[in-house]
């Protein structure tokens, strides 16, 4: 639906300030707007419920809590998202299913590319079968 020129409203959920700030600045530098960054699961779910984002970049663990409920909520709301985390994909599968995972440390260009794909409607929400264990 989105055209290449339409900026995305991107939810950034990350509990480490420096990283959250970095991701937010990358997103903004790419011409998109940032919702957040938000550091806790409860705040994030509340934010999503009130204001549907176009895309979400979420950390897997926030202040010691899993963000899987947030991922479920995003799925239900059909909001595309990626899990940006230092955990290995295999460790996330039990709780995050086949969600796309972006491994930390993530480079600015990767985030920009992902957002571009979402913008062009080329984003695959599910990771490819061969990556599923």
């Amino acid at each position, binding site marked *: 639906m989105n055209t290449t020129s339409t900026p995305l409203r991107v939810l950034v959920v990350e*509990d480490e300030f420096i*990283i959250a700030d*970095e991701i937010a600045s990358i997103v903004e530098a790419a011409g998109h707007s940032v919702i957040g960054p938000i550091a806790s699961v409860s705040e994030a779910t509340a934010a999503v419920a009130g204001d549907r984002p176009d895309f979400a970049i979420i950390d*897997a663990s926030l202040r010691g809590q*899993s963000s899987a*409920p947030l991922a479920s909520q995003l799925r239900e709301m059909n909001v595309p998202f990626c899990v940006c985390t230092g*955990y290995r994909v295999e460790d996330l599968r039990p709780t995050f299913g086949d969600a796309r995972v972006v491994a930390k440390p993530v480079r600015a260009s990767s985030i920009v590319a992902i957002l571009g794909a979402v913008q062009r409607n080329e984003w695959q929400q599910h990771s490819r079968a061969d990556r599923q264990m």
Partner: protein
Amino acid sequence: MTRQRLQATIVLLIGVGLTVVAGWFVDGYARRIREDQVGLQAENATYAVKVALDRVAIAVQAVRALYASDAVTPEQFNRFAGTLTESESIRSLSFYRRVPLENRAQYEQRFDAEPQRTLGIWQYEGPDKPVRAPDRPVFYVVEASYLLSGRPPAIGLDVTSLPGRTGAIERAISEHGLTVSDPTRLLDTSEDGVLLYVPVHDRAGQVIGVAAASVTFSELGLVARHASGVRDISISVMPAVPSQARASADSEVAATAPPAETSPPEADTRSFTFGDRTWLVTAVPSPTTSPFAPWTLLLIVGAGLAATAAILAYLAGLEKAKELTVARGRLRSMLDGLGPLAWLLEADGTIINANRAAIGAFGRARDNGVGKPFWDLSLNGGSADQIDRLRQAVTAAAAGDDVRFDLEVDREGERKVIDLWIRPLASMSGEPSLLVASAVDVTDRYEGEETQRLLMRELDHRMKNTLQVIQAIIRRTARAHSTVPNFEQSLIGRVNAMSRAHELLAQERWLGADIRTVVLQETETFSAGAAITVEGPNLRLNPKAALSVALAMHELGTNASKYGALSQPGGSVSVAWTIERDGKEPRLVLRWKEAGGPPVEQPTERGFGSMLIERSIAYELEGEAVVDYRPDGVVCTISIPLRTIRPFVAPQLEPTQAEIAA
């Protein structure tokens, strides 16, 4: 062992002793019975002999009576003798005429047949060679004779010419009674025997001759054998004794006479008086007549020893059974004392036995699982896969394999992992008939491995996060500094600060760190000694808080070193923290206060450092941080709820129950 051996020895001694005594008794008893029996047999034999002799005596007396009454023709005599000898053991009956020498010629007139007609009264000169008897004062001539053998009688023979007879004939006449000849060879039978004589008188009382009967020892022996059953009987007569001496000893059956020298030890000899002689009857019992054959004793001794051996074996068996019971008990105790679980299974997986640990772990309320298939054990929540796996393991073990694997089981709702080992018990035939299953609870090990795995996961995660942070710091630092040396110095400072904090946390296994250690570690890099004072109560920080505080101290210290109190001698910094409980929740309040530095100017643009402090504290710890650039020195106040800095045990990836419910 010693007691056992003593017991065996005692039993052996008693057994052998009893056997010997029993054997001795039985042997004695057998001997006595045998003796009694032999005595009885000898008595019977003697009696039979005596009866036979009495009958012979009657026959002789009958002949005497016959001749005493009248003249008897040979035909009359033969008829008479024939009836007398029918059922008796008499070999011959005869009448000898007493012929004085002066009557010889007259008597010889009666001979009308040869050889008597020619020879007259005759005698033997050799076998079958009759000759005329020489003149003697008195002849005893065979006038009539009945021979059982059927041979012709030796009519006309003078019997005094034969050996052993004369004395007895003379005694019969002189003593008017029955006499017995010496044992002699009987003419008509060629056997040994004796002749019985009684004198024959006429009505006038004159001796006219002698009646005689002959008996053989063999015939008497036959009679005795028939009567007694004793096979070996010998009969003999003692030399004749004078009548005076004989009278006192004349009894029916005399006491046992001294045995003949040739008699075997067991022979029983009886004696009695008949005629003018003592007769001896010796009975030698045949071996079969004894009720106890010699092997009976052997049998008794053998049986006694066998019984002793049996008792010994039984006692040994008892001891062995006791040992077995003790050994079984020990084995049971050992099995029950074992920490690992252990089962004994049939080849088909049926539980035969289980040790206490196994029963405690998997036994049900009432039974211990015995008799049930092994795979039923995990049925409390055991999945079909699990049952299949156990079945296959049992089958493989029954085929001879050692099977070992880790198995997850549900034990009263608790997940446990056991290291299960099923092995065949090698039997004698080589075919495994029983299986041994043993299991060790390795849940702890698994949990340890799980903890290790989680730790590794966290470490990996943290490292990647840190790289991400460093990446961000590099970008920010690079943006803030126009020159490369400044950039480098600043970047290295920040990375080092993070590195030190990581190191400290790593020492504490990422469980947290003490605030004083964190603060001192950073401030010491800026001052040599007393320029910075650190003061505050002990407080544990979680890793995130520790990193934030460390980074804040680094940024503040760097700033103070460059522009503030630490940039010139005399300047000082006070770092103090307290826990304030005034507000709605307890908070850590930490104050960085500089003094003695150059006058502070309000910066026109907030640097990365102060921004980092203020925003990261707020963002990550829900706290507040304010950097106040007072003219007399920078003051930074950091206030954080204790809630967010308390150490937490382990980060969570999986959602909690509450989160799932939400």
